[in-house]
């Protein structure tokens, strides 16, 4: 079986719902961020929950589903645009079983379930990524792109490469659950 991924207990905060958030991650505006449970936020990640929609009341800026992973050094930033002369930020919604590789920058509007984003990707503003899509490593997805379900995108600009196999959802689910199970504190601090 695959080896566990160890982390030092001092670095991560574990919530009641099983989220594991690194103390070395920058979480701005935590009151505007929702984590679905069993989601891991690795060290060095930046999540900008402070970039909220102008206006009164409580606003959810970034919501993440269950079994997600925000890799090391990722930047999650809600998309913005000027509409009818008003500058505004718009919420970012991410589904379940979404893994985002290290050092990627995400400004998507919606990311579906079972999505895999590689390392060093740039996901442009207002991108919509549907279920079971995959973004290969080092891909630049331009703003306003739509990535259809079960598609593999790669390159710069990110382009459709091929359809993914029909069993993608089961594979990704097993993979994300497996990663969460393997991600455990060091049994004894060496």
């Amino acid at each position: 079986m695959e080896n566990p991924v160890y982390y030092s207990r001092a670095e991560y905060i574990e919530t009641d719902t099983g989220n594991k958030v690194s103390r070395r991650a920058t979480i701005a505006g935590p009151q505007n961020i929702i984590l679905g449970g069993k989601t891991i936020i690795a060290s060095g990640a930046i999540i900008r929950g402070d970039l909220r929609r102008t206006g009164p009341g409580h606003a959810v800026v970034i919501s993440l589903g269950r079994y997600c992973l925000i890799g090391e050094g990722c930047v999650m930033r809600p998309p913005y645009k000027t509409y009818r002369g008003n500058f505004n930020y718009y919420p970012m919604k991410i589904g379940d079983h979404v893994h985002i590789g290290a050092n990627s920058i995400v400004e998507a509007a919606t990311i579906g379930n079972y999505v895999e984003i590689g390392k060093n990707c740039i996901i442009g503003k207002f991108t919509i990524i549907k279920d079971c899509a995959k973004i290969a490593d080092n891909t630049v997805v331009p703003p306003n792109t739509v990535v259809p379900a079960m598609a593999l995108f790669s390159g710069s600009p990110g382009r459709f490469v091929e359809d993914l196999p029909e069993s993608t959802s089961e594979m990704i689910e097993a993979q994300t659950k497996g990663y969460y199970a393997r991600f455990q504190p060091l049994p004894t601090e060496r």
Partner: protein
Amino acid sequence: MTASVQYYCPCLSATPHPPPSNLASSSYSFHPLHSLFFCEECDAVRCNRCVLVEVSGYYCPNCLFEVPSASVRAEKNRCARNCFMCPNCQNTLSVVASDPPDTEDSRSSPIVISTVGEPPFFLYCNHCRWDSAEVGITFEKPTGLAAQLQKFEDMAPESLEFERLKEYYEPQLPAASSALHRSVSGVPNFNGLSRSRSSREKGHRTKKEEESVYSARVEAGSSKGLASGSGGDADVDFLKHLETVSEVAALEQRWVNSWTTSLHTSDLKPFRIPLHSKKSKRCPSCRHILIKPEQKAQSVKYKIKLVAANYLPAINVTLPHAQAAIEMIKRSSTMNRQNAAAIVEEHSSAAAGNMLAGKTYPFHLAFTNPLYDPIQVRLHVQRAVPASDPAEKTRRPPFAVTLPSSAFTVNAYTETWGLEEEDDDDMFGGEDDEFDAARSGQKDAKARGRNVAIIERRANITVIGGEVMIAKEAKGNVKFNMLVTYTYRSDDPEPTDPSLSPSKSKGSKAPEIKTFSFYTVVELGKIVPREEPKPEAD
């Protein structure tokens, strides 16, 4: 390169046995488990190469509109809404308005301007900053752009020529195809391209038109009227006076077109985005449906989904020596720098799965049972074709693989396995017989090596150990074909007593016990020659 296991689909060969794994061509017959299908009727594995594919629906990959198949042909397989592709970088284009004129009243009512915008409208690429005004395409209204662009496309001389050809040959097709149908079996009878024309009209025009000679709109060979790019003098002239390479449109930018197009980058036109399709898949021999997607284009659910992962045990291969090496590299990062570099150097080869010639390595195979019944698995390494010729003998694989020869059990899959993780110690309570069997397996394995045995058993996973002995003068990859045979009880819903099943499956052949076998190829890693234990720096 990491160790991998791939599964065999026999569709490319006449025999059920796979080609020797050392042949480069054998890789076409092996596939990762998750890309395979399983036909219940034929009781066989099917792959993407052999299944019959049918289109079950069309959709635009950008606006995700589900296009009814009736309008797909009229719209020439492209999106008829406002989706366009940049001819330069193939990104999607967005419609933008011109800058508003700088007058005072535009300031007073910013709302009106930003919603509608000022004509002319044009298409703009967010990635490479190409815009359609460069090639003289602008629009008065921001809606219905596809219809306007399709008009351009249909006006192309090649397109008109094609329409004319189609018009000329269509009446002759039924006669020709029925003749073909008679002489060549298997060719379906043609029943007309356009359903709009009445069959009676077709019938009586056929005879007459057969005699008439087709007259082309444009004389063949003349580049007049056709776009440049067809190799005329104009192209030669253009290429002679070329200043930068980017003036010539790349092949990638041109071959998405239906016709030959201009060589000039400045002539590239925006495309309507080609449609994608959802596909259903059928078994090639019994025609039963293996994959049937739901109607909704963006749904990832399937009405029918018979994938091999739900029928065959999943096999994972791990190399303990490579894992140990990775662990050493990780640990070394906490050490002082000098030491760390040396350790990384020493272990990076092993971490990549490389093996030294002349040594013996253990490996682990983890079997995961997807069925709701326990299975008995038996493994065989496919020997090379018996060498009749003594000269052939030297060409046998330069390594020997040892696997446990007795059958082992992989427990049934139950929904609860996913919930609790490691606390299944009580699982092992009543299975002493099993372990005796395992131990006896160990005993007879002792002669060959202590690593060949059942190593671990938990939930629906059984890990077995194998060993590979690499010859001194070996080179290449450690890669071998493995026959996996498993027996399972198909109709019995109650879990069989695991202590009884090994003897039972060997001795009596109860009718409800079924056997299925399949080939896999196991790739462990590269053999590094002994003379240079460290890999060359490359």
